[in-house]
């Protein structure tokens, strides 16, 4: 095996602009970015980290069943999400909080899921939710849904027409652990076979809970899709510019009818898998220190400061983050518990005698306690 090319990178870990060898084809996307877009990237990352902290605290205080933080993975997520266009569709895993936010989803939807008040959270068919599909927690299953969706996009003729506002790409997020699931591989088979406009976006955060990525693969994961006939690239996932540019390019390719592609974003989950996890059991201090030094937000902050972003800007972002988190906290505490309807009403979309009967039984039974059991 020849030495793999370096991951695409535009920002060195110290925040200086230093495109990696082989990144030329992505450069135009970087050059087209405005200062406002740069600041938006930063804002996205900063606010979501504060949100993550708030949700973790809420969980510690018994207000959530669980919280899966995205701490450390913000650049991979923001870069890819900001590269999508309105008509694109997103199939997330369960950690893409900022992608949801960027697409327009009220994050209370995710809070509801993790607090345990709902199994859903938002309506993907409501245009304000930016085609951000529901979370499915069974690892890898969403890669097939995304691929099937993209097959439909193809059948609808919504790729390769040259119309940038209707040609549609489909992005699917998944983790390094999930790559081992049969479904992810079958998704690549179907995507290649039907030449779907799917962009497989792998966040390699080095861990599947406690299991290191080396257990899933002894060669870099971005090589895997090539054996399925799917082109791929590895990107520094802690470099928001690289994540953006690489995503933008591959999304364009997908919309232009060039078929599926695969992006491996190298990143790191700083902190726990979820609030149920104790990473000190498997992660070394050195590993953590290594990656903390590559923090995606700090890196981009330095870049922006070097470019002369104002103190006022940073103060404003800080304030927005605080407000956002406070708002989430307030609304979380106000979230009502679901009712009996919630148990029965949407299991089927058409009448179902057994459900009708059981709903009536339970309502009756609950009423027998005077309604305040």
């Amino acid at each position, binding site marked *: 095996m020849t030495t793999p090319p370096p991951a695409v990178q535009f920002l060195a870990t110290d925040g200086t602009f230093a495109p990696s060898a082989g990144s030329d084809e992505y450069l135009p996307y970087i050059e087209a970015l405005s200062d406002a877009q740069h600041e938006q990237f930063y804002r996205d990352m900063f606010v979501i980290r504060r949100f993550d902290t708030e949700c973790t605290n809420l969980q510690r205080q018994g207000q959530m069943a669980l919280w899966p933080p995205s701490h450390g993975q913000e650049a991979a997520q923001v870069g890819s999400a900001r590269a999508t266009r309105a008509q694109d569709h997103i199939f997330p895993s369960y950690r893409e909080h900022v992608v949801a936010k960027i697409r327009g989803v009220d994050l209370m939807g995710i809070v509801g899921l993790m607090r345990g008040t*709902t*199994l*859903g959270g938002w*309506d*993907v*068919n*409501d245009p304000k939710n930016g085609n951000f*599909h*529901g979370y*499915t927690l*069974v690892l890898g*299953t969403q*890669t*097939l*849904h*995304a*691929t*099937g*969706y*993209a*097959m*439909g*996009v193809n*059948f*609808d003729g919504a790729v390769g027409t040259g119309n940038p506002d209707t040609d549609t790409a489909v992005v699917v997020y998944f983790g390094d652990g999930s790559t081992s699931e*049969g*479904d992810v591989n*079958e*998704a690549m*088979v*179907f995507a290649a*076979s039907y030449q779907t406009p799917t962009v497989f976006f792998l966040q390699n955060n080095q861990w599947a809970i406690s299991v290191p990525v080396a257990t899933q693969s002894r060669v870099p994961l971005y090589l895997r899709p090539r054996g399925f006939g799917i082109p791929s690239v590895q990107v520094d996932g802690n470099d928001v510019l690289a994540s953006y540019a690489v995503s933008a390019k591959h999304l364009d390719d997908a919309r232009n009818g060039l078929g599926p592609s695969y992006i491996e974003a190298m990143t790191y989950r700083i902190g726990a898998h979820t609030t149920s996890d104790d990473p000190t059991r498997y992660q070394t201090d050195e590993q953590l220190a290594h990656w903390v030094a590559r923090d995606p937000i700090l890196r981009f902050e330095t870049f922006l400061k070097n470019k002369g972003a104002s103190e006022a800007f940073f103060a404003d972002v800080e304030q927005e983050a605080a407000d956002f988190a406070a708002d989430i906290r307030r609304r979380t505490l106000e979230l009502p518990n679901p009712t009996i309807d*919630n148990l029965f*009403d*949407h*299991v*089927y*979309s*058409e009448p*179902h*005698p*057994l459900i009708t009967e059981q709903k009536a039984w339970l309502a009756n039974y609950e009423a027998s306690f005077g309604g305040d059991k």
Partner: protein
Amino acid sequence: MAVEELPLAKAINAGLRKAMRDNDKVLLMGEDIGTLGGVFRVTEGIKAEFGDTRVLDTPLAESGIVGTAIGLALRGYRPVCEIQFDGFVYPAFNQITTQLAKLTNRGRGTLRMPVVIRIPYGAHIGAIEHHMESPEAYFAHTAGLRVVSPSTPNDAYWMIQESIESNDPVIFFEPKSRYWPKGPVELDASASPLHASRVARTGTDATLVGHGAMVTMMLQAAELAATEGVSLEVIDLRSLSPVDYTPILDSVTKTGRLVVCQEAAGFVSVGSEIAATVAERAFYSLQAPVIRVSGFDVPMPAPRIENLYLPDVDRILEAVDRSLAF
């Protein structure tokens, strides 16, 4: 009223074509269903009529088939998946139980999952391992799915169309031993609701219920019993989830005796459910315990002894005798 004599396989074919003509979001997907027309030729000629974006010869991966069908449904399509044989549905089981069955509920009314999964099932065809199974119980137990099985060409024609029209996922079990015999199909009748059962023969002494290929056997048993003066009522379940209990309970109220018949292994099965529910709801009507005639709780055996495994007319009559003797 146009009535045509069709074998069940061709009735499904006709039903599929009708649904595809009526709604261009309906598409078929599966292994070998296009060019070959399926190993049972159920989809024969459909690709020629509708082309390869409506009839997909997919890669060989059942989870992939159902998983991408879910994605297609999210895009507004109404995919009809074929699983080549009963014994090969299990690779898709995760997508079916954790995704297909649950997405409507997860979506809290915002999503629809109009996916049909056609599964040729059951025995009596002398085929090797994994080609003659009756896995209905797994799907009937799964909340969020509808499970149906036609026993006649007419039902097959209508039920496949109703299944495609349903906004819920439907597991459609096709009794493969009944693919070939012909029966009348009323091409312009209107359909009865998908979950309604059907009294296939009226009688007074005992009730038989079952579905799929078992219906033919129950009718044969009733015929034979009649020659000995025993009058059996036969109910074709048609839907295994939900079960349409009213006609069954009505019948048992009349006859006082029930024999539940199925090819599937009996332990924790649809037959168990029906026996338990009827024993509960018709407690005072029952003059004998509900008797179940099922496959044994062993893997479907090699075809040269499938007849030892399978419930047949004799076993049904033996159960009726036990019931009447009680």
